């Protein structure tokens, strides 16, 4: 059952089922690593219609293992789009009103150039031959996509987690192109603890003998065990102790008593194993290395002499930040330090902390208070932008 879906992931890599924009040798992507990526491609989805003034565009930035399929059935998993609770006709982000763009990040594995993509110079997958990609590289590529649509100023850029980092980077790099910014459950830098968790995940992938130094496709294999373990460890960080206990407690999995073995006795073990197994069906292991690295390298203040406020100096963008009380990956303090920097920069900023026990993943879930905040913020920004209801 897993095999055909795994194969499908591969077909999405070079020739995705979504629209794709290809940039030839005349339009290379300048990378922070100091090299040029060329040719390269961006796979994307759009929803709704761009108005004549091109003023109603919303760019959605996806998280670590997300993709461009934000509001349509995912071609790999067959599941609803990852933010379909929020985005669609008549929803909070109403696609009958706004033109929504979401692209697979550079380094991803669902159609934008990434380590699984075929390197035209060799005819083989890039593997680790792809330079390390940064959040800023991803945003630079997105900017070229936005140019393609002839959009001078995005009405809003929003995203959670790694997507939130891209939002902050957008607002910092291209302030005049971002009317409003909505970074959710994110930080202006990756903390030491977060880097630590990512390193555990990467080591799990690289310790899998099937990883083959990143050239697993050439050996007809994939480091599924390593990647699954990486996902299991990461998944714990997306939840909270309270939510885990509420959902699973110490409940046993399909059995009456402990087995005195190492099978999945507990429901939580079974749940995590399932998370790991389904993840490897849809995600490329090398891409996981690149995505985690991009977050680790992110430090917006460091790019501005250590002073975060300088990353937003003179900004006219309207900001709204959101954090969740039980998010221990990007705790409220991370958002608050961004808020203080924005205050210092004289920016217009709202900040909402939402009480929930659902942890970091709360931003992907049906959280009424989150939706109310997004609705209020988008609504007032739309009025300020002169967009009709």
């Amino acid at each position, binding site marked *: 059952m897993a095999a055909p879906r795994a194969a499908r992931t591969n077909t999405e890599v070079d020739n995705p089922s979504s629209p794709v924009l290809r940039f030839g040798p005349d339009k290379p992507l300048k990378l922070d690593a100091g090299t040029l990526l060329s040719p390269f491609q961006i796979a994307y989805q759009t929803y709704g219609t761009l108005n004549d003034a091109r003023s109603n565009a919303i760019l959605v930035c996806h998280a670590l293992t997300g993709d461009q399929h934000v509001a349509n059935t995912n071609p790999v998993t067959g599941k609803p789009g990852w933010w379909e609770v929020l985005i669609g006709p008549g929803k909070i982000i109403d696609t009958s009103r706004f033109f929504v763009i979401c692209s697979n990040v550079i380094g991803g594995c669902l159609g934008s150039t990434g380590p699984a993509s075929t390197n035209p110079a060799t005819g083989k997958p890039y593997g680790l031959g792809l330079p390390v990609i940064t959040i800023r590289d991803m945003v630079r590529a997105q900017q070229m996509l936005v140019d393609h649509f002839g959009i001078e100023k995005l009405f809003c850029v929003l995203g959670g987690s790694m997507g939130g980092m891209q939002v902050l980077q957008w607002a910092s790099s291209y302030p005049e192109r971002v009317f409003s910014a909505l970074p959710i459950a994110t930080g202006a830098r990756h903390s030491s603890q977060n880097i630590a968790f990512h390193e555990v995940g990467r080591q799990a992938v690289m310790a899998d003998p099937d990883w083959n130094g990143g050239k697993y496709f050439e050996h007809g294999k994939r480091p599924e065990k390593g990647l699954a373990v990486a996902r299991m460890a990461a998944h714990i960080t997306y939840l909270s102790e309270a939510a885990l206990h509420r959902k699973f407690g110490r409940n046993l999995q399909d059995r009456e008593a402990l087995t005195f073995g190492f099978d999945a006795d507990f429901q939580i073990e079974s749940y995590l194993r399932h998370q790991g197994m389904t993840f490897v069906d849809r995600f490329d292991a090398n891409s996981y290395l690149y995505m985690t690295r991009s977050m680790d390298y992110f430090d917006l203040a460091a790019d501005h002499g250590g002073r975060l406020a300088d990353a937003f100096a003179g900004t006219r963008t309207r900001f709204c930040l959101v954090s969740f009380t039980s998010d221990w990956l990007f705790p409220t303090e991370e958002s608050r330090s961004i808020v203080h920097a924005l205050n210092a920069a004289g920016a217009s*900023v709202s900040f909402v902390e939402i009480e929930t026990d659902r942890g970091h993943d709360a931003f992907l879930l049906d959280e009424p208070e989150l939706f109310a905040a997004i*609705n209020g*913020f988008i609504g007032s920004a739309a009025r300020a932008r002169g967009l009709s209801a």
Partner: protein
Amino acid sequence: MSVNGSQRVDLEVVANLIPPRSRVLDVGSGDGSLLELLQDTKQVDGRGLELSQRGVNECVARGLSVIQGDADTDLEFYPDKGFDFVVLSQTLQATRNPKLVLDELLRIGNRAIVSFPNFGHWRVRLSLFVKGRMPVTKDLPYSWYDTPNIHFCTIRDFVNLCEELGATVEKATALDANGQKIGLSMPWWFWNFFGQQAVFLLRR
């Protein structure tokens, strides 16, 4: 953080001090009624700082630009003269360090507007004088042990603090129990006795 029981009778007085399209920071913005009033009638560029997270979330859901924060600790993050007006309405008496807060207001705004309940009002004096007990009135409904209002002052106390901080009083208004202005030409002692609320426009 509207920390007395009254409707904010001072809102219109405060709003009238602010010209259209000003940049305004409302410290202790509560449920956002002043910001909303200013946005609707004066098209101001308004921001709020509010202690209660619930208040903040409701404000943001209504499209107001508000963050959660504490006047005692979070004003330091704002740049000098970043706003035309900084408003502190019915909040000064609940701060831990009113002097520092007022100093910060004068640093952040070209003008500061401060309103507060007057502890020199005759009802307050009467309660203490006759009953010998801390006053509990309709406007100040808390008992001494559970009140968030830890730094009450009278109008005269406040005028002294302004002098100490080198602030110029550009305008001052005392309001009676119904929120009506008390005659302009009255001396301080009269306001201090009959004013239930005071609204000051300051600069430095």
